């Protein structure tokens, strides 16, 4: 089962930080996929940073639950073997670490953010995996 949680609907945003407010994580969820769709963004891309924090105690304390970033630069990147490709997303996925392995904990919350350092047309969401 997957649960999609939108952070940013498609539109021009930035520069700035856009928050995913604290959201319950159902029992059984064992991972996450954080996706920023840059297919409609103009080239070059700004610096884009994604981060997640998880709480195992209903928001009293928070720990790192994964993240990734891409420095500003061309949308085109070098493929294996030397060709050029144009990815349509920037994303990360994880199902390790103390937060995502606590699948039976009923008190889990996740929160996060997307930060861009210039105006860009993107969509952002996370997908809870189980």
């Amino acid at each position, binding site marked *: 089962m997957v649960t999609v949680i939108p952070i940013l609907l498609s539109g021009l945003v930035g520069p700035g930080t856009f928050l995913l407010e604290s959201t319950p994580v159902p029992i059984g969820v064992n991972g996450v996929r954080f996706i920023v769709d840059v297919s409609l963004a103009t080239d070059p891309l700004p610096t884009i940073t994604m981060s997640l924090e998880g709480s195992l105690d209903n928001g009293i304390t928070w*720990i790192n639950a994964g993240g*990734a970033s891409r420095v500003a630069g061309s949308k085109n*990147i070098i493929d294996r073997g030397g060709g050029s490709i144009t*990815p349509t997303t920037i994303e990360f996925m*994880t199902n390790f*670490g103390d937060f995502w392995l606590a699948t039976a904990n009923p008190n889990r919350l996740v929160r996060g953010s997307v930060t861009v350092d210039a105006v860009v047309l993107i969509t952002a969401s996370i997908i809870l995996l189980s």
Partner: protein
Amino acid sequence: MATVFDAQSSTNGTNVTSLSIPAFTVGSGANRAVVAYYLGWNDTIGVAASLGADPGMSVISGTDGGGTTAIVLLGRITTLTGSQTASMSWTNSQINVVGGVMTFTGANQTTPFNNGTFGSAVSLSVTSTSGDLTTTGCAASASGNVQTGAGDTGPGTGTIIHTWTGAIDNLTTNRTRQFFRENGSNTSTSQSIYGISGVNVVQAAAAAGVPSLLMAPVIAA
């Protein structure tokens, strides 16, 4: 004191230049060391890694596959324990990349790593000594740009061969897969191995025995 696997965590990314690896719990066993596994797509330029508040890790000699395998291992000793986060970064955006870390206890604090190596076959031999621990990071692809990355550990009993077969979870006997990541899925499918890097984690030196003292009896005058 033999080297023992302690803990691990990992993340994979698409089209990124850094990964933040989720917090995991480092044990309190003596003589700790950490290895970071960069399993990239195109190159290893500018790869850096750190654990918590530690200084940055160093590239482990012999493990950098450069543009051939796009895999490199980094490591250092550490005194950190408890909940820790690791981070990795590199210069060029990789279409697919896996970043993992493992911690070990019982590691030599002067020379924690030796015999680093890399290759492009499904098997990699890592030279070790009984009581050491060998570890490898492997990357594979299927259907173009779908990448799998995984790390394993094995015993240190001479020349240890780590074999990652087509399905990357099918390891040589006595090797233990410690992390695994396939983009968009947790399911391992038939893969085309394109690189493995490995290293021997050296065991801590045996504690010196307490020297016995020969005491001359004191004879009262």
